[in-house]
């Protein structure tokens, strides 16, 4: 088996791809002229995966925050922490856990091969002891407390909590001070063995590299290690009712400027591939058209003093869940809520404008080109999309193929009063 090449003419990019015998998918995107190389090694295991059939075939429910806890613990090796090893070769290492995945990464300008080996080796070598697991609890407790004081984080999670009854996306990624206390090394090993199999992982390397060299290195590295045969991972989710859990959620945080997040819970989920990408992009455009920075209402809200530059809109879509989110700082969040609902009702009545559609589509294309300057964006977004069977480089063709009617359909499908919730931090 040798690497395949995917050429994207218009973007002047060539992506190299190979799947190894152990199931690991490897992608390399050479970037000539760049100094930096950025690599991510990602497992499809995030905070929502808290109930599953383990590698030994047993049904397991794990404490909240375990995927994130595991991420912290992977950095520890018998001989100390792995940051040390990276910094010897000038690499900046890091990791992050989201709802759906855990990514380990580094960036460097020299010794790419050494750093890549370090990355593969430490992520494929768990080392948990009772003592080192205990020690981590103090650090993560401080991380959780830091976020408790952060009003933007609180309003974001408060909003998701309002949307969902049961789906674990409503749980804070880091868990709580109490839930992390229940974590022990045995539970960490169960998660590790279940989700860190190469067949559930993706390696992406972008930068000033020779694809052949990278593939040779990764293949040799993987051939030296033994893995259990790949088995299908079964995640268990309780059925999530369609309506939102609560219409309104308020959090007291003693802030000078209140914050509001509002939006709609997506009912059209369980998508993948182009259909999913199309829904994601058309909903983004829809929201921009309704209330984005170039809509006329944005300017009015600014003049009325109800929003400031923090006001934004977003749409998140994954296999199990999806939601739009509108909000930011507001002196008078209830007034803003009322105005946004008015604006939406008006759009529902009068319809959308074709000119707005064209302008926002153009803007999205430009923003995507801009994002392609960023190795971080390419690696993390490519991986996220791939886990959903989408190709990142399909974004421009899909944007170009969108029709005005697609946006109108989204308006009819996504915007429903029953699906609407709001969270206010004040």
């Amino acid at each position, binding site marked *: 088996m040798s690497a395949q090449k995917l050429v994207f003419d218009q973007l002047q990019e060539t992506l190299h791809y190979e799947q190894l015998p152990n199931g690991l998918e490897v992608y390399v995107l050479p970037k000539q002229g760049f100094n930096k190389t950025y690599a991510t090694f990602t497992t499809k295991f995030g905070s929502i995966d808290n109930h599953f059939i383990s590698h030994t075939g047993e049904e397991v429910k794990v404490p909240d925050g375990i995927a994130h806890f595991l991420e912290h613990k992977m950095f520890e090796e018998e001989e100390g922490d792995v940051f040390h090893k990276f910094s010897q070769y000038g690499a900046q290492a890091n990791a992050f856990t989201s709802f759906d995945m855990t990514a380990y990464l580094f960036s460097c300008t020299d010794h790419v091969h050494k750093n890549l080996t370090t990355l593969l080796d430490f992520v494929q070598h768990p080392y948990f002891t009772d003592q080192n697991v205990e020690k981590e609890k103090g650090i993560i407790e401080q991380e959780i407390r*830091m976020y408790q*004081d952060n009003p933007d984080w609180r309003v974001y999670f408060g909003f998701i909590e309002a949307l969902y009854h049961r789906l674990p996306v409503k749980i804070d990624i880091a868990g709580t001070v109490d839930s992390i206390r229940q974590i022990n090394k045995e539970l960490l090993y169960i998660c590790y063995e279940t989700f860190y199999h190469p067949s559930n992982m993706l390696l992406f390397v972008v930068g000033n590299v020779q694809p052949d060299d990278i593939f040779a290195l990764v293949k040799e590295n993987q051939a030296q290690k033994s893995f259990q045969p790949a088995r299908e991972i079964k995640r268990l989710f309780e059925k999530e009712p369609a309506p939102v859990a609560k219409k309104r959620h308020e959090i007291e945080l003693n802030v000078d400027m209140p914050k509001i997040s509002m939006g709609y819970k997506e009912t059209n989920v369980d998508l993948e591939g182009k259909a999913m990408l199309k829904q994601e992009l058309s909903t983004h455009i829809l929201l921009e058209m309704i209330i984005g920075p170039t809509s006329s209402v944005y300017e009015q809200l600014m003049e009325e003093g109800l929003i400031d530059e923090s006001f934004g809109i977003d749409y998140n879509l994954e296999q199990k869940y999806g939601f739009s989110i509108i909000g930011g700082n507001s002196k008078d969040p209830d007034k803003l809520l009322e105005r946004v609902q008015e604006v939406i009702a008006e759009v529902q009545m009068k319809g959308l404008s074709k000119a707005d559609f064209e302008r926002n589509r153009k803007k999205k294309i*430009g923003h995507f080109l801009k994002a392609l300057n960023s190795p971080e964006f390419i690696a993390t977004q490519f991986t996220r999309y791939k886990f959903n069977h989408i190709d990142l480089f399909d974004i421009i063709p899909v944007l170009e193929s969108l029709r005005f009617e697609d946006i109108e359909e989204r308006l009819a499908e996504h915007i429903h009063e029953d699906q609407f919730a709001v969270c206010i931090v004040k």
Partner: protein
Amino acid sequence: MTDQFQSTRINQIPVHFISTPKYKTNFISLYIRQPLTEEDHTKVALLPSVLKRGTEKYPTAQRIRQALDDLYGATLSTDVVKRGEEQVMIFRLQLANEKFLSDREPLFEKGIQLLSELIINPRLENGVFHNRHVELEKDLLERKLSQVKDDKIKYANKRCIEEMFKTEPYRLYPYGSKDQLEHITPGTLYQFYQRVLNTHPVDLFIVGDVHKDYLLEMVDKHFKLPRTGLIDIPRPSVRYRVAEERRVVEKTKVAQGKLHIGCRTQTAYGDDDYIALLVFNGLFGGFSHSKLFRHVREKESLAYYVTSNIESHKGFMMIMSGIDFKHYDKTVQIIKEQLHQTASGRITEEELNQTKAMLINQIKEANDQPFQLMDYFFHGIVGGLKRSSEELIAAIQKVSKEDIQHAAQKVQVDTIYFLTSEETGDQS
């Protein structure tokens, strides 16, 4: 491997540019400098947003944003930063390169034109800034200033600096103050802006896949400022002996204590031992292999983040951490102990090499990010000493343990600021 700016002057404006095929977009930035003063710093903070409100050709903010969207989602952002004792307005524009688009509009020229329109032809009313625009932006700025309290890390930073530099201009917040805001009118702001345009140092930066001749021709065609003479901005003094370490404790409703320690480094960007200070900071608190991270986080589990940063022009270093309220004494003690250890030369060969490798990596990585590259070059302009990245890397490689030790010996704790919970006792 590194990209270097070429500099020239067009219409009396220094223009720094790199012509490279590396990126899919083109980058343009304008830096306008002024001395940091109580009287003017709020006007400076307000100006970029008022200018973004409207021009003669695009009279409303919405029209400007639409014009940007029409340029394939060009992005215009503004910022106001503090560099030593000066305040700098930065206008940044990023535009797609038309060669990647099916529709080949001359985006670069339109971008330069738009930026110049914004700076030179603001929307006026009765010969001064548009009243409604100024009022709106004053209101937005006032809200932004109230909100600083809501971000506890930012707030602790601001408060520590205010306490530490009580009698020096460096105490001033780059986004201005509420007191000054009240006095600003469209007339006084416009008058001030005219002075800025005529006499304050301006630097224009361009990076992109644009041929040098065309690039300069476009600047010449569209960018003409009414220059009448330049003011001189003096460099701040960094020599300051700390007579007595100060402690400031403030209480509010928080889940985590914010410990911010302000130190004097006695070293400025242009000084010979600045590079040693840079390496010292990396070794002490700049990275995840640094002393602070290892001792405060990894060994003692006291914090999730603990870091130190140096400010290049005022000789200032800030140490920051989020800790449990009851661990104040212990954490301060460990931090001071590590500072002391470094100053007495307890530096391993491994730490030294790791830190150098990390710093060199950072510098090389910045070469892939045009806006960072511009910021770095601009530091050289402010600091009065331009070092190319090659020179900087070579200088870092030469730094010895003794150099770091000397730099560390000059570092003195000045002010320890602690933001803690209302529920804790007096002895935090």
